């Protein structure tokens, strides 16, 4: 390992920036820091010209490898830095010091985790992402958001300690803390897998995402959408590439959110489901595990961060101006916010993988790899999910927010900084879609792949256009389920309702337990004391003044006893 170069992880300037933002009371300076730090980080990223492990710290017998720069981590590093920068622009209007600070720390922690070369460093940054990001949810400053944040944090802390426990078991048994390929069969592997799975929102473990993200702040949701889950994807790619189970998990992940998204009313929650669906593609790619598939996952993560951020940005802008993102309360906003609507459509087209959009060049890698390896059921699910993506992200989001029937709400267009951020993101979406070579060049593995073949474009267009046709028809005939205010049950029911009940039960039992421990002791103590008192108090049976005659009898009895003893023994 090359240890001579004093190269620093790009995470540090960003985390430092976050800490500074926490201390700086002046809005302008804070914003300057939050813009400058991603650029510095970018410089750090570019300053490394060859793979290697840098910035190793020796602490308490552990070696913390804080900057491992290799094919896999550099992709994620770059996109995280870009996302940080975009987020900073998007948040320029925001005067909340707490958010400024935690958003940067969170981003930095995500970067740190990506560049972590050992499991302990990974754990460190892993937990740091959890505790910094939760403030972006809490910063909404309402009780619902607070509770959701608490649930979010609990789940992520769980993920963190599972990672820690798994890593410890792994390291204890293998003697190495290195974070490389782990696999389910390694000691502790299952725990680590579970930890990653929680953060990656595996089916049944996913609901923290839909629960928390929609409740976070305008800026918060954008920031959140970028890092946590993609970090998990990275970790899976690093530790569990080629794990068969991931293919199935990923397939389920892509498919089931589609159904939930259809009936979801909160558009940011729709995006959260969409996030889940997109992660599924990446997870499948990792599960397939070939070079092409891993490239697909990496590329998908890269472009996904941009377009998902773009979509969240546009919904954030709506929320910021209108005050709600409930589909049932929106509609016709293109009349007030045309630019936002435009950028939103770009993002929607991108996520739907229209040709010339970034989604197309990335998603096709995964699909190709899946099909190449013969996982045809999975492939079929993915194709279905592609249609689904179009439904909820490609059509539903822009349609119900900006078009549909006019809600009559007339607001101002989004602030300039939001538009700028959206604009850059939209530009990137198109740029990558048109010039995929730049993206392909930084992927982990060298490959020779041409996304724009006639067959491919036609197939994709068939899928998309026919799906859109279906949409039009369904709308026409009133078969599309109308948007209406509601909450849909998901796995969060288990912990929000059942768990809530459990919690209340535990609460009651805890109260009773402690009360009864004390009471029981108290009651038993009092009963015993009373009984003893009755026996031994001055007026009690054992302590009453007895007539001397009785004592004389006692004496004789004892004499008799001693005689018997002596007699028996003698």
């Amino acid at each position, binding site marked *: 390992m090359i240890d001579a170069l004093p190269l620093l992880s790009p995470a540090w300037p960003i985390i430092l920036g976050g800490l500074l933002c926490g201390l700086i009371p002046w809005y302008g300076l804070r914003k300057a820091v939050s813009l400058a730090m991603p650029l510095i980080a970018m410089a750090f990223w570019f300053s490394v010209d060859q793979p290697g492990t840098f910035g190793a710290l020796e602490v308490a017998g552990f070696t913390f490898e804080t900057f491992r720069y290799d094919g896999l981590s550099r992709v994620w590093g770059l996109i995280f830095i870009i996302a940080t920068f975009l987020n900073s622009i998007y948040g320029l209007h925001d005067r909340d010091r707490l958010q400024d600070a935690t958003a940067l720390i969170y981003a930095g922690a995500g970067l740190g985790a990506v560049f972590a070369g050992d499991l302990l460093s990974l754990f460190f940054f892993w937990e740091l992402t959890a505790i910094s990001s939760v403030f972006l949810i809490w910063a909404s400053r309402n009780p619902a958001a607070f509770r959701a944040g608490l649930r979010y944090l609990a789940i992520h802390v769980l993920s963190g300690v599972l990672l820690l426990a798994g890593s410890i078991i792994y390291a204890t048994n293998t003697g190495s803390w290195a974070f490389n390929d782990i696999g389910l069969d390694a000691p502790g592997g299952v725990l680590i897998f579970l930890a990653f799975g929680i953060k990656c929102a595996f089916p049944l473990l996913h609901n923290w995402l839909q629960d928390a993200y929609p409740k976070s702040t305008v800026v918060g949701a954008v920031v959140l959408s970028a890092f946590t889950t993609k970090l998990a994807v990275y970790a899976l790619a690093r530790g569990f590439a080629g794990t068969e189970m991931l293919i199935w998990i990923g397939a389920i992940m892509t498919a089931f959110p589609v159904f939930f998204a259809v009936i979801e009313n909160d558009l940011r929650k729709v995006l959260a489901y969409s996030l889940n669906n997109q992660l599924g593609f990446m997870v499948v790619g990792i599960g397939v595990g070939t070079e092409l598939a891993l490239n697909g996952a990496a590329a998908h993560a890269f472009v996904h961060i941009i377009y998902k951020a773009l979509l969240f940005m546009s919904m954030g802008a709506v929320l910021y101006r209108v005050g709600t993102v409930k589909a049932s309360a929106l509609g016709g906003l293109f009349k007030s916010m045309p630019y936002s609507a435009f950028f939103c459509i770009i993002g929607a087209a991108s996520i739907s993988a229209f040709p010339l959009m970034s989604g197309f060049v990335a998603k096709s890698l995964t699909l190709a790899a899946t099909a190449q390896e013969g996982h045809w059921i999975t492939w079929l699910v993915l194709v279905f999910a592609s249609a689904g993506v179009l439904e909820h992200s490609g059509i539903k989001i822009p349609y119900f927010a900006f078009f549909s029937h006019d809600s009559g709400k007339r607001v101002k267009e989004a602030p300039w900084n939001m538009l700028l951020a959206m604009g850059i993101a939209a530009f990137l979406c198109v740029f990558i879609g048109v010039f995929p070579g730049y993206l392909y060049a930084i992927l982990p593995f060298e490959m020779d792949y041409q996304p724009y073949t006639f067959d491919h474009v036609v197939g994709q267009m068939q899928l998309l256009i026919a799906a859109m046709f279906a949409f039009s028809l369904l709308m026409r005939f009133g078969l599309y389920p109308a948007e209406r205010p509601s909450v849909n049950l998901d796995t969060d029911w288990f912990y929000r309702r059942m768990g809530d009940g459990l919690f209340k039960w535990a609460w009651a039992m805890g109260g009773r337990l402690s009360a009864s421990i004390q009471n029981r002791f108290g009651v038993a103590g009092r009963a015993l004391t009373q009984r003893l008192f009755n026996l031994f108090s*001055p007026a009690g049976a054992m*302590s009453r003044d007895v007539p001397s005659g009785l004592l*004389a009898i006692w004496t004789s009895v004892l004499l008799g006893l*001693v*005689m018997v003893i*002596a007699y028996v*023994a003698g």
Partner: protein
Amino acid sequence: MEFLASILPAQIVAHAPAIIVVVPLLMAAVSAIMPNGKLSWALVVISAAVSVVLAIVLTVDVQTSGVISYAMGGWAPPAGIEFRIDSLNAVLLLLLTVIGLLSAVYALPSVAMQIDANRQSLFYAAFLVCFAGLLGVAITGDAFNMFVFLEISSISTYVLVGMGAGRDRRALTAAYNYLILGTIGATFFVIGVGFLYMATGTLNMADMAARLPDLSSSRVVQAAFAFIIVGLGLKAAMFPLHLWLPNAYAYSPDFVTVFQATTATKVAFYTLVRFMFDVFWPDAAFVAVSFFWVFAVLGIVAMIVVSIQAVFQTDARRLLAFSSVAQAGYMMLGLGIGSVAGIAAGMLHLVNHAMMKGVLFMALGAFAVRFGIRRISDLNGFGRSMPFTSVAFTIGGLSLIGVPMTVGFWSKWYLGVAAFENGWWWAVAALIVSSLIALVYIGRMLAAIWVAEPQHDRDGDIVTARAPWLMLIPIWILAIANVWYFFQPEFLISLTNAAAEAALAGEAR
């Protein structure tokens, strides 16, 4: 201590065993005719001081030259009465005389308050008789003579207890009860001695001891054993024969309580040890069995049951009286263990208990002199009302519980170690349970003293008082002794070990 022995005239040293008993007796007679209590008190102090000196002399003598046999009136044993001092009773003599002196010093203010002026001389005289009787019991080597001294001390004690009637009429009933029971005990004892005389034809204890091994299967000897054990056990307030004791302690004058609690039962315990080891033959089956089935069992029951009784008392002195019975259980346990370590632990506790109970009762007396307290609730806030006495009381209390840094710890430590060596872990458990109960009842008093609100006078100030110096000095001597002998236990341990070895040496004869 050798220094003391060297400056005394050889004549006195030679006759020390007799003088130590005779002086108090004579002084008693003189004291009875003194015109006022103060003079009598001075006589008491002087004679106690003399006895202390003599006890030291005797102890040194025993340590340097072994067993002292003193033929009373020049008639050689076994025909004549023998005073016989070995390490076992040397300890006792020392304890008796030192405590006697301390309580004598302590007596003046208490007696001045609690006894009518015109009876104080008689009171002191009775005390001296009692003192002499106890010394006699400790020193004599003759069984019948022991009975005589036992009765001398007992009868004078009945008188002393009865004199509490000036303050509380219940003292009369208590004294009466004590009289009946004490007499029963003495009668049993003398019957037992009679049986032994029947079997051995001698009254000299050493002589008996020499003859008894051959008679171990004799039913007469066994009966004698039973009578003696029960008789002495009653005197020593062995459970369940202890019920005369609490009232006798609770209603007698404070000074009498102090003296009784620290000496009377100790002497009775000594006689038990003496008879178990030096008269009867410990290897005899009936003796061996009774170690466990009588002493250990009853001792443990006392340690626990009587301690619980103590917990629920409302009268402070009754509480401590019950505690004394429980503590006697510790000594019984030590005796029941029957090994050198056990006896040594028992003897150690005997000495320690005198020290701690001395402090406690003396402090109660001091409280009583100033505030006339009886009940535990009367102790409220004394920590601020009478801080010096309270601190001493606290030390005594902690020592009774057996907290390290007080001498009570060593009692339990050695008792525990002795029990462990015997494999009697259950005895250790009982020891601990009993200590915990002691913690509770002492805790009740300490809580009242330190935590409860003190009395306030009309201005809202805390009523404060200081015990008279004559009380405070002995209290603090004992309190300091309680701590001192924790850090310098060598003296006590060597004494009690010697005592235990002396007791078991009887076996070898």
